[in-house]
């Protein structure tokens, strides 16, 4: 039987209370949202917090998806299922549904949250790449107030984010920009598994040329998820197959996959290139259709 090591359990009924508890209980306290990353880690003793602060009572306060001030704001406690089924997100950012429908399975998606996924920062996790491709920002709250960071500043590497000891992620903000399209492509060993490699792409057009591009990879780059050189290669050019092939080659060149049971580094690099190309192609089709 796998059970976590002993800990003290406390429930927070507001964001303010959660932050107070984090401060009072110190660095050995952890927040638990859906628990579908943290509890498995605790069962394996890869995480052994002394205090677990259950923030599920905040699902109402932090579980909203709404458009406001030129952004779509997604509460950190929004569960995967609600991200998947949000009409607003499907309309604005189809990349979200592409990714969500292939994250784990329905019962897991009923519990896991977008905030939990981003804070866990698993190197094979999908939503960090989705948010990075969309050039989203995250809101981190502490006693001193809110900090708003972009994904590059937030996502520091495997299992590491900019969230401090007595802070919590409360919201993801995705800018709504005109003439945009987005897509996510993933290859996994079987349905619901972690990615062998995955690529997210977003394009924003200005007339016949690319005004801005977002490209991010999952599972193939421990240093970060954004591919800035590939993005830059597209700006100012028509959204053509030739440009996409060039950007995909750069993304593959700049990633740093490791060989493991999911495949060789060479195979993953091949996937990074092919999936980036496909994601760009589909993002462009959606941009033109919007």
């Amino acid at each position, binding site marked *: *039987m*796998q*059970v*976590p*090591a*002993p*800990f*003290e*359990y406390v*429930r927070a009924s507001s964001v303010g209370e959660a932050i107070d508890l984090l401060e009072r209980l110190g660095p050995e306290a952890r927040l*638990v949202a859906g*628990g*579908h990353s943290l*509890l*498995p880690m*605790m*069962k394996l003793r890869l995480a052994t917090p002394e205090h*677990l602060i*259950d923030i*599920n009572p905040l699902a109402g306060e932090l579980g909203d998806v709404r458009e406001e001030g030129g952004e779509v704001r997604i509460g950190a406690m929004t569960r995967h*299922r609600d991200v998947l089924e949000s009409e607003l997100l499907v309309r604005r950012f189809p990349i979200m549904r592409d990714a969500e429908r292939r994250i*784990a*399975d*329905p*019962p*897991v998606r*009923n*519990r896991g949250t977008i905030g939990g996924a981003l804070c866990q920062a698993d190197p094979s996790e999908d939503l960090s790449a989705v948010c990075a491709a969309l050039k989203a920002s995250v809101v981190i709250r502490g006693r001193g107030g809110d900090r708003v960071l972009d994904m590059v500043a937030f996502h520091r590497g495997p299992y590491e984010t900019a969230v401090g000891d007595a802070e919590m992620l409360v919201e993801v903000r995705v800018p709504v920009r005109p003439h945009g399209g987005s897509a996510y492509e993933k290859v996994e060993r079987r*349905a*619901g598994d972690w990615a062998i490699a995955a690529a997210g792409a977003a394009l924003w057009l200005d007339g016949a040329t690319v005004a801005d591009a977002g490209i991010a990879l999952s599972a193939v780059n421990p240093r970060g998820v954004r591919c800035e050189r590939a993005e830059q290669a597209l700006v100012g050019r028509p959204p053509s197959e030739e440009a996409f092939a060039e950007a995909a080659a750069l993304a593959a060149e700049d990633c740093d996959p490791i060989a493991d049971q999911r495949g060789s580094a060479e195979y993953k690099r091949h996937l990074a290139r092919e999936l980036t190309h496909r994601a760009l192609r589909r993002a462009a089709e959606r941009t033109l259709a919007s």
Partner: protein
Amino acid sequence: MQITLSINGETRSAEAEPRTLLVHVLRDHLDLTGTHWGCDTSNCGACVVLVDGEPVKSCTMLAAMAEGHEITTVEGLARDGELDPVQQGFFEEHGLQCGFCTPGMMLTARALLNENPNPSDEEIRVAISGQICRCTGYANIVRAVRWAAEHEAGATAGEEAIA
């Protein structure tokens, strides 16, 4: 800690450590052994119960986290000695062999039909995609859920009225 849960409409209490998972409180503390304990890694779905009507893997939820929510286990499916149409469907369509995955499968089917009374085969397959069955090849499970959809109380009452 004292954990008080609402299970199948009844209030039940157990004394358990905070680290105790919901599946173990159900099985070991409350003797509700209909919920099966399988892979322990949120992969197999044998331990699925409904939390506020949604399928959840009870091996990956602390019992303490379930306080204040409505839990439905397979023991709560039949009403007044009458099988739920989902249970009847698994019987009619041979939706089980060894039975290990069956409680979770039936609860997921119940949740699906509550939201979508007439699902397509594809929607049924997606709904049960987080649960593994090593016997049936899934075809009979899909048929069982279809049977239930076609024989829900409303539909049955209508047919009887016509007859």
